C-alpha cells in the first residue's frame, strides 16, 4: 500500500431508500491524512453518503474501497475494526447510558489504535467531569463532544463527522473544531459534513458538493471559489 493510494475510494454509488433514489453514481476519493468537506443543500445526499461509507446503508450499485480493500459488503462493526468511525447526524447518543458507557460502547469493535478513556477526557475536558451522568442530561455541545468521543473510542483512521456544529453556539463549535485540528495533525483522515460554507472551506483540503444525489463539484478547497461552490450548491451554471 503506497502513500499516494487513496485511503477511501468510492465509485459509482447508487443508493435507494425503497423506491426513492438518494445517490446517483457518486464517486469520490479521499487521500490519507486529508480533510474533505462535504457540502450541499438539505436532502442532497450527504448523510446518505456518510452512512453508506460507514456501512449503515447498502448501495444498490457501486463500490466502497478502503485502504485498498473492497469493503462494500462489510457490516458496520467490521468497518469500525478496520478504522472507519461515524459521528452521526443529531448525535444519537444512547440516552439511558452514562457518558462513559456511551464512550465504552463506541469501543466494542475498536481498531488497534483505540483511544483509552483518559486520552479522550484529555481531548474533551468539558465532558471529563460528567462521566457518570446520563447522556440525556447534557447540553447540546457536551452531547456532541460525547458523540465524537464515542467515535474516537473506536480508534478511527478515517473519521466521518455529520453536521457536528448543528444548533451549537459558535464558541462551542470552535472548541470542537480545535479537537478536529488536533486529530488531523495526529494523522487522522476526516470527512466532514458542514452547513457553514466558510468553515467547510477553511477547515478542509478538499471540497465535494452534492446536488440532488450527484457530485456537482469536487476540487481542492484552495482552488474552488465561493461563487463556484454556491453555484454548484443551488444547481446554477454548468458545473
Amino acid at each position, binding site marked *: 500500500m503506497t502513500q499516494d493510494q487513496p485511503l477511501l475510494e468510492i465509485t459509482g454509488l447508487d443508493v435507494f431508500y425503497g423506491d426513492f433514489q438518494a445517490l446517483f453514481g457518486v464517486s469520490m476519493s479521499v487521500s490519507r491524512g486529508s480533510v474533505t468537506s462535504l457540502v450541499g443543500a438539505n436532502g442532497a445526499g450527504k448523510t446518505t453518503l456518510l452512512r453508506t461509507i460507514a456501512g449503515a446503508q447498502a448501495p444498490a450499485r457501486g463500490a466502497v474501497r478502503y485502504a485498498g480493500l473492497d469493503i462494500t459488503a462489510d457490516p458496520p462493526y467490521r468497518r469500525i475494526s478496520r478504522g472507519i468511525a461515524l459521528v452521526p447526524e443529531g448525535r444519537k447518543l*444512547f440516552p439511558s447510558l452514562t457518558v462513559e458507557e456511551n464512550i465504552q460502547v463506541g469501543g466494542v469493535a475498536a481498531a488497534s489504535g483505540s483511544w483509552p478513556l483518559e486520552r479522550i477526557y484529555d481531548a474533551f475536558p468539558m465532558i471529563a467531569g460528567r462521566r457518570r451522568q446520563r447522556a440525556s442530561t447534557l447540553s447540546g455541545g457536551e452531547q456532541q463532544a460525547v458523540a465524537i468521543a464515542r467515535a474516537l473510542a473506536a480508534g478511527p483512521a478515517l473519521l466521518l463527522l455529520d453536521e457536528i456544529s448543528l444548533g451549537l453556539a459558535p464558541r462551542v463549535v470552535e472548541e470542537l473544531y480545535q479537537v478536529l485540528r488536533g486529530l488531523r495533525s495526529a494523522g487522522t483522515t476526516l470527512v466532514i459534513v458542514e452547513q457553514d460554507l466558510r468553515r467547510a472551506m477553511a477547515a478542509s483540503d478538499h471540497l465535494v458538493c452534492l446536488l440532488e444525489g450527484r457530485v456537482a463539484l469536487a476540487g481542492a478547497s484552495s482552488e474552488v471559489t465561493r461563487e463556484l461552490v454556491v453555484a454548484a450548491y443551488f444547481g446554477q451554471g454548468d458545473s
Partner: protein
Amino acid sequence: MSWVNAVVQGILLGGQYALIACGLSLAFGVMRIVNLAHGDLAICGAYLGLVLSSALGVPVWVTLPLLLPAAFLAGMALQLLLLGRALRHGVLAPVLVTFGLSVMIENLLQVAATSDPRGLNGGALTLASFTIGSLTVSWLFLAAFLTACVVLSGLQLALSRTSWGRQVRAIADDLDTARLVGINVRPVFATVAGVAVATAALAGVFIGTIGTFDPLAGTNTLIFAFEAVVIGGIGSLSGTLVGGIALGVTQVVVGEVNQAYAVLAVHLLFLAVLVVRPGGLFTGHQPVREVHGWGALG
C-alpha cells in the same frame, strides 16, 4: 396470624412469577419480541428436567448443570434460526411466529408425553419445611424465591456492569445507532434469547417441582409472566420482581378469603394497573413505548 402467613406465602410465590417473567421482559426490552411461546418454553424446561432426572435417577436439581446450558443453547438457536429472521419482517411477524411456536410445542408435547399431569423429583427439598412462630415455610418455596432474587440481581449486575450489558442497553435504546457504533447485534440478541430461555427453563423446573405440569400449562404460565412484567414496568428487573410479588400476594391473600376468586383478583389487579399506570409501577407515567427502561439499571 393466617394473614401474615398468606402474605409471606404470596411473596414467595411472587418470586416464581418474577423468575418466569424476567426473560419475557428482557426479550421485549432488547429485541422488541413479544414471545408468546415463553410459557411453553418454561414447560419444555420442566419436561427436559423430567427426562434427565428419570434417566439419571437423581433429583432434578442435580440435572441443572446440564439443563440450563441446554436451554441457553436452545434459546440462542431459536433466535438465530427463527426469531432473528422473523424480526426482519416487521414487528408483527415475531408475534405470529411465536404464537405458531407455542401451538407446535403444546401439540408436540402432547404427542411425545401424553396429557397426563407430571411432577418432578425434587428430592428431600420437596416436603421439607420449617416454622417460625405460627408461620410454616416450605424450603422449596423459599428456594424458588431466593433463586429468583439471585437470578434477577445477577442479571441486573451483568446489565449494569459488563460490556455485554452496556451493549444490550445501547441496543434497547437505539438499535440503528447501536449497529452504527460497532455493536455486532446478532450475537448479542442470541445471548439475550439464551438467557431468556434458560431462566424460563429454571422457572419451569420450579413449577414442576412445586406443583404439576402438563403440555398445555405454558399458556397459563405466560399470562402470569405477562402480568408481572406489565405491573412492574417493562425494562425494569426490580420492577418485575415487585410485579411478581404483587401478583403472588394478591393471589394468596384473596385465596385466603375465597379460593374461587384468587386468580380473578390477580387479573383485576393487572387491569387496574393498566388503567392507572399503563407504563407500570416503576417507570413513571410514560406510556410503554417511550420507556427507555433498561438504562435505569445503570
